[in-house]
């Protein structure tokens, strides 16, 4: 456990993880009402990764996210109400209802977007890292991706490019065990994601993705490499997702008891609470945060429901900045 984190920081990290968890749990319920359109990929179960990474970052650092991006958005500071409104397809959403769940972005927060194309974030993050390198101000870029993304050529190209050009980018691979409906042990031929980084000539570390402290400390080492030496690396975090690939996925590929078992054994919030004593944090303080988070999510859903729908006059705006 990292004692360099202040109590405020630790409480902040817990709040972020709890916010992501409740955001997703609530969405799972609301989606069943039929009020939310389209594809939604929930992040619950993986919260420690997004938060353990983003706790090291500020608004100048850049992240590129995935189709399962709500957690990264919240951890990087995107407005929760603006996100909820976007997922509801409202005019008040972060993308005015034009992007939806898979395309939430906030460039002022250094959040370069969730992304509907698995692996596309790798090349984008190397570009963001190049911008950081050219500016010479020790910014870093993070490419979030799942175990499925490591089988995409775009990610191989990006890893090699990052090594060849010496770019301060970290490929954060969240191995939740499934590439869509197919097991990672089947789809990753070598069954070993971290060793792929070594093949490209970059350092890699593996850690428990369901423990905030494990993620935070692993990232501290790799971020030092990126910020101080400008070098790329890869982190593989073993984690799980509490829901399907997308909402409505019957998850026939998972053993009947797997999710319940993982919820019991692989829970970053429980892990955090179990360590509260050692951290000099009272459980009552965490209970207070839980209440505040639930209220925030309630407000976000209510506000999204009450918000005006996306405006039809916006269909052809924002395609270009200028189009003669």
């Amino acid at each position, binding site marked *: 456990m990292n004692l360099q984190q202040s109590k405020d920081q630790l409480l902040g990290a817990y709040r972020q993880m709890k916010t992501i968890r409740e955001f997703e749990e609530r969405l799972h319920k609301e989606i069943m009402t039929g009020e939310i359109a389209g594809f939604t990929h929930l992040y619950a179960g993986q919260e420690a990764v997004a938060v353990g990474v983003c706790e090291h970052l500020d608004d100048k650092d*850049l992240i*590129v996210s995935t189709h399962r991006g709500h957690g990264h958005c919240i951890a990087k500071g995107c407005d929760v109400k603006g996100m909820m409104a976007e997922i509801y397809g409202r005019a008040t*959403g*972060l*993308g*005015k*209802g*034009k*992007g939806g769940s898979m*395309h939430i*972005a*906030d*460039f*002022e927060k250094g959040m*370069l*977007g969730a*992304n*509907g*194309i698995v692996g*596309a974030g*790798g*090349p*984008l*993050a*190397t*570009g*963001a*890292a*190049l*911008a*950081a*390198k*050219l*500016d010479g101000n020790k910014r870093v*870029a993070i490419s979030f991706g799942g175990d499925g993304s490591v089988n995409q*050529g*775009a990610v191989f*190209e*990006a890893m*090699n*490019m990052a090594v*060849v*050009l010496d770019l301060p980018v970290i490929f954060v691979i969240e191995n939740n065990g499934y590439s869509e409906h197919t097991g990672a042990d089947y789809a990753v031929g070598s069954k070993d994601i971290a060793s792929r980084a070594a093949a490209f000539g970059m350092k890699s570390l593996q850690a428990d993705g369901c423990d905030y402290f494990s993620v935070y400390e692993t990232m501290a080492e790799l971020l030092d490499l990126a910020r101080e030496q400008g070098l790329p690396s890869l982190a593989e975090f073993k984690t799980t997702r509490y829901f399907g690939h997308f909402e409505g996925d019957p998850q026939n590929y998972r053993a009947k008891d797997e999710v319940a078992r993982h919820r019991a054994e692989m829970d970053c919030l429980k892990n955090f609470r179990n360590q509260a004593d050692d951290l000099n944090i009272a459980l009552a303080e965490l209970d207070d945060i839980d209440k505040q988070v639930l209220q925030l999510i309630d407000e976000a859903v209510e506000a999204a429901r009450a918000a005006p729908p996306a405006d039809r006059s*916006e269909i052809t*705006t*924002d*395609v*270009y*900045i*200028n*189009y*003669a």
Partner: protein
Amino acid sequence: MPVKTYREALNDVLHAEMARDENIFICGEDVSGGAGGSSGEREASGGIFGVSAGLLPKFGDLRVLDTPISENAIVGLAVGASLAGKRGIAEIMFADFLGLALDQAMNQAAKFRYMSGGKAKCPVTIRVPYGAGMNMAAQHSQAMYQIMTSIPGLKIVMPSNPADAKGLLTSAIRDDDPVIFFEHKAMYGRKGEVPEGEYIIPFGEANLLCEGDQASIITIGRMVIFAEKAVAKLQADNIQCDLIDLRTTSPLDEDMILDSVEKTGRVVVVDECPPRCSIASDIAGFIASYGFSSLKAPVAQITAPHAPIPFARELERAYVPGPDRIEEAVRKIITYQ
């Protein structure tokens, strides 16, 4: 005005713009060439067609980046950096290789601004040598601009002469939207007068190269040169045509097209692409929808055939639309009753 080649005009712009704005960088395969080679020559090629020559010694290897052969990552590199405050120029060595980079162009660069509700800015320029005429066969000769033109969010540019190469590339680099800039391989050595100093041609403004009231020839890129040859022969027989160089297919100068159609009522569209879903069929469809009442004859579409580009000299020469076919089409439509 000084006379320069198309290649020199483009090279001048890269030098001038990179000197003007330190946020600009260029990346691609062999943009300088020589990295890691045994000769120690750090600028071994200056781009496979020489367009980026001299940039490395002047701007250094932080801003002039030789990359691995990884088209998707090359475009992604430029796009990601451009989202993060830079102004990236990526070179895709042959337009045919856009297939490898299509995701970053089509799903990423083209859509960020829209998906973010207007928050993103992605001022990237993707330079793409294109076109047939050098016997490079089916995978190194395609035009590809028709495919890219169909993608909302991208701007598509193809200069037909050295002056336009200068004016349009300057606009492309300074543009805040993603631009795919098509440079015809067979035109790099062509010479023409190029204005000195800053020279900017706005997008969406076609160039009316000559005027006449008997027919409208609408075309782009290298086909403009062939159309000019056809026009010279037609003029010798006192057949007068409007010749429109579209310069950009997205945005499209719809006003100039419709004004010309209204005047002549007879149209030949010339396109280097195969016929299906081509620029020719796009323009013909546009005219049929919005200029129908002016038409006195069917719109003639001069295109390549629905076939891959062949290798042998005789075959490629017959494949690419040439001056004779343009001339013949004009003679045919002006007598159509």
